[in-house]
């Protein structure tokens, strides 16, 4: 099989362009504006070639391999023969700039090599040094089927909106890992993390999780400036409804400020954001340091996928600490009104001390985790049902098949010794198997027979989640007090939020008014000034 036949033409053409560009970049070169753009491999996203060069330069050593020279090997599905092998010589780790096709006889492969990749790598390394005097720091082994899947993925991706592309890409990665079609040695932490995620999901499609989350996101149009001393770049992300009847599409663009006519020299973060917001016509613009994002992602992938409470708390603490570090670690335009001192003063007169700079990053995860442990126990099985009551507005909640109609998705979370050990999707047919099963009580009994004692069932309505995500995440910078209180009030309605059996915390939410709940929890959520 020839090289040309093996790889998707468009992918190959783009890849060669990348190599050519990379080979012309000299160490110390800075961003140059060029007319011709290149695509990020496996996506239709077109970017300035230098930006891609830069992304590889900062991300590859950090997340994949920090040494030079990479060898790609394509082997037959039975693992008995090498189909092709390519050597990428890299002056800088991760910067692929030249490709060399190896003759067949240089690398020999045995069926067992795929199982003992370290031994295989050492043998290759020895052979390469002897025969060609070359060293490689990393090998990537693709089975023939992996190439087929990559080729299939590349077909027609130019016309796909970003959300559909993401689903396709996630499915591709999951298949490659699940079917053991790709291995890399030395195994980077990120690959191990992906493998753990896939194994943790136990056959459940990661893309299905995306399909649950995506409709919950409101329409948005944001830009994020990733700041650094060397090269700043902008991510323009937009979720747009073409018409009410059609599904919304996600659009993503990556660019450097120069491309939209912004010269960032001597501009401060807020000035950059104002210009970016103006040029891209986005609702808001964020500024985040690249180093902070990389550090957060590094921490995230270093976590065990069996999510331990301590790890989850640590990540939550880091995230909340980042959130409270407004105008230190991140910037936002328009400036959030919650940082307006006059507004805060008036709110304080009514008994609300809202100071997001004093957001208690350490006490919030602590409170949540301790309440969770004591109420649900250290070992528990919790069924989370995502309902869609908007779809069944006309059905009376007392109707015998109300529950059946409103259930959209159901996920079973299994926790053992404060660690999330399993998530599985429960098909609707398994929840409501016959006519007798119409109540949460009967669902709990039925599932307890199959999966063991079910501690709780939590029902959350889509509308509540959509409002919550919109108001408290995307529009967190706006006051919108009435809308926010209205959303909190939804927590009190069984239709939108329900915990079965009704635990003390649920009763507390139900019993107290939204304002009284805020007054009770705010002193925990916001730190006093004394320390």
């Amino acid at each position, binding site marked *: 099989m020839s090289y040309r036949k093996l790889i998707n033409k468009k992918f190959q053409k783009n890849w060669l362009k990348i190599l050519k560009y990379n080979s012309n970049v000299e160490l110390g070169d800075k961003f140059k504006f060029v007319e011709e753009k290149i695509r990020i491999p496996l996506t239709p996203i077109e970017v300035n070639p230098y930006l891609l060069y830069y992304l590889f330069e900062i991300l590859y050593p950090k997340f994949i391999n920090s040494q030079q020279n990479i060898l790609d090997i394509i082997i037959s599905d039975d693992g008995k023969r090498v189909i092709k092998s390519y050597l990428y010589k890299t002056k800088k780790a991760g910067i692929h700039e030249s490709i060399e096709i190896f003759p067949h006889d240089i690398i020999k492969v045995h069926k067992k090599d795929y199982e003992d990749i370290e031994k295989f790598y050492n043998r290759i390394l020895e052979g390469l040094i002897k025969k060609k005097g070359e060293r490689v720091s990393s090998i990537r082994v693709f089975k023939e089927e992996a190439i087929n899947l990559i080729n299939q993925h590349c077909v027609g991706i130019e016309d796909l909106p970003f959300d559909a592309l993401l689903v396709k890409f996630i499915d591709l990665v999951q298949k490659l890992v699940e079917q053991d079609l790709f291995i890399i040695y030395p195994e980077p932490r990120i690959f191990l993390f992906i493998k753990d995620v896939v194994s943790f999901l136990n056959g459940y499609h990661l893309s299905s999780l995306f399909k649950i989350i995506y409709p919950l996101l409101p329409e948005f149009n944001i830009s994020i400036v990733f700041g650094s001393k060397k090269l700043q770049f902008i991510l323009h992300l937009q979720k747009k409804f073409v018409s009410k009847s059609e599904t919304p599409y996600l659009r993503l663009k990556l660019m450097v400020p120069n491309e939209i006519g912004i010269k960032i020299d001597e501009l401060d973060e807020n000035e950059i954001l104002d210009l970016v917001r103006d040029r891209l016509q986005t609702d808001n613009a964020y500024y985040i340091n690249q180093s902070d994002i990389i550090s957060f992602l590094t921490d995230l992938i270093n976590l065990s996928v069996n999510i331990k409470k301590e790890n989850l708390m640590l990540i939550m603490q880091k995230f909340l600490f980042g959130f409270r570090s407004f105008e230190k670690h991140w910037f936002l335009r328009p400036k959030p009104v919650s940082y307006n001192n006059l507004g805060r003063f008036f709110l304080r007169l009514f008994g609300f001390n809202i100071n997001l700079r004093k957001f208690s990053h350490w006490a919030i995860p602590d409170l949540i985790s301790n309440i969770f442990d004591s109420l*649900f126990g250290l070992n528990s099985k919790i069924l989370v049902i995502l309902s869609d009551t908007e779809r069944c507005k006309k059905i009376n909640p007392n109707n015998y098949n109300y529950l059946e109609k409103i259930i959209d998705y159901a996920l079973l979370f299994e926790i053992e010794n404060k660690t999330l050990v399993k998530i599985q999707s429960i098909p609707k047919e398994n929840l409501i198997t016959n006519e007798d099963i119409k109540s949460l009580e009967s669902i709990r*009994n039925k599932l307890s027979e199959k999966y*063991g004692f079910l501690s709780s069932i939590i029902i959350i309505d889509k509308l509540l989640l959509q409002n919550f995500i919109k108001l408290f995440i995307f529009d967190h910078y706006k006051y919108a007090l009435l809308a926010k209180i209205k959303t909190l009030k939804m927590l009190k309605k069984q239709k939108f939020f329900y915990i079965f059996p009704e635990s003390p915390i649920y009763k507390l939410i139900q019993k107290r008014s939204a304002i009284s709940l805020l007054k009770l929890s705010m002193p925990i959520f916001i730190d006093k000034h004394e320390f």
Partner: protein
Amino acid sequence: MNDHSDLKNIEVAIVKGDTPKETFLKGIEILGGISKFIEEGDQVFIKFNLCFPTGFPTNTNFDILDSLITSCKKAGARKVYLGSFPFKGISIDTISKFLNLKEYFSNLGAEIVFLDNSDFFKKKKLKGDQLNEIRNKSFSTVTINEKEYLFPKIIIDSDKFIIINQVNVNPVFKLNLSLLNSYSMVSPKYQDIGSYENLDNRYISNDQYKQDLISNILNVFAIKQPKLVINDFFYLLERAGPYVYRDSNLKKTGVIVLGNNALSVDLITLKILNIDTQNYDLILEANQRGLGNIDFQKINLLGEKIEDINLTINLCEMKLENINLKNIKVNSGQLCSGCYKQAYHLLNFMKTYMTKDLKYNPNNAFLIGNSPLEPERFKNILLFGDCAIKSTKNSNFRKLEKMSKKNTSKKKSTKKKHKSGSQKKEKIKIIANKNILELPGCPPDILNCFELLLQYYGKKNLPNLHFFENLLELVVKPKEKEKLRVMGVI
């Protein structure tokens, strides 16, 4: 009434498995099947752990409970009842509603018994006399060793009595054994050891509280002994327990011990977990009373061998000073098990649920026991228990010296300064130190301690405790307290 089990044929099975349910069923099979314990038409009462409306492992593992109920029904049990008295002040009805127990057990063909009659509390127009009548109908007065107990009639009347016990670490007895589990067959009122008016050193040095407690536990246990005892430590809460605290860790051992004699099952459990049985006072006293057998030769051990299961666990912190709370220095004097137990729970509660409160209020000294060490330069002093309060009546920290000269601050007597000659002498006034919070009781009641802490520090300075107080009000309902009192429960 004293339903002594046959001490000649004691059988204990040690089982190890992959899941709690499978392990339990294997254990029953090893003992000869459930029909060896349950006969056709029996009324069965299952005593399980039911402390708070919380999850596992504070309460029993419901997967095992489910299997036990199903097994009893299969063996032909006419009626299967379940019950236990929860933590002081909480009604069974409250727990049942929060955990939906009534419906859950009913679906399995069993019935939860509201031993405190709290299922009647919601009925309107129920007067004191009627509550008394209900109480008389549901309880029998039993006298053991000259002590009277109100004992649920339903347990006495049941043909078979089973204890299913979740083994967790315990601050006083190292482990929550089945003998301890049986104690909550009587209400918290009858579990109370009572206050001692004239505390003397002998009371503390002999740990009279623990001796009285052991005697009380065994009195209750002797009223109705179980036919089948299950010590479930497939999962065991170690380090801090028996409730879930910050330092708690759930250890998976995969082991369940079960048999026909509680004392022997407890003994084997201790042995497996490498806890010294020679000096274990509860077991020794039970043996003396003839409630079981601690002679290993006379116990027919089935299933796994003890030596094959070598388990070590982390027990509760025996020194209160080592619980390590932020901004609290603990000084213990000589103390009894009563105060130790309550302080252990209070300190662990604070460590778990009051992190922000502890950060907001620096420099606290927590004094407990008889004649604890004097605290030095602490802003707040908490005196826990009658012993600490009485024995520190004349301590230096009780008084402060205030100088009358302007701009002088509070200073202690040890730092007295006399200025010489021509300078005016400062007037020193002795005033009472108001930064002392007394938490009275022998031992103090934890819920009462929460109230006193909130009063002393103020709600603004204790946001965590204020939040939990609101949550607690839903569990320990003030309206129910009076009814529980009439019912003889608290």
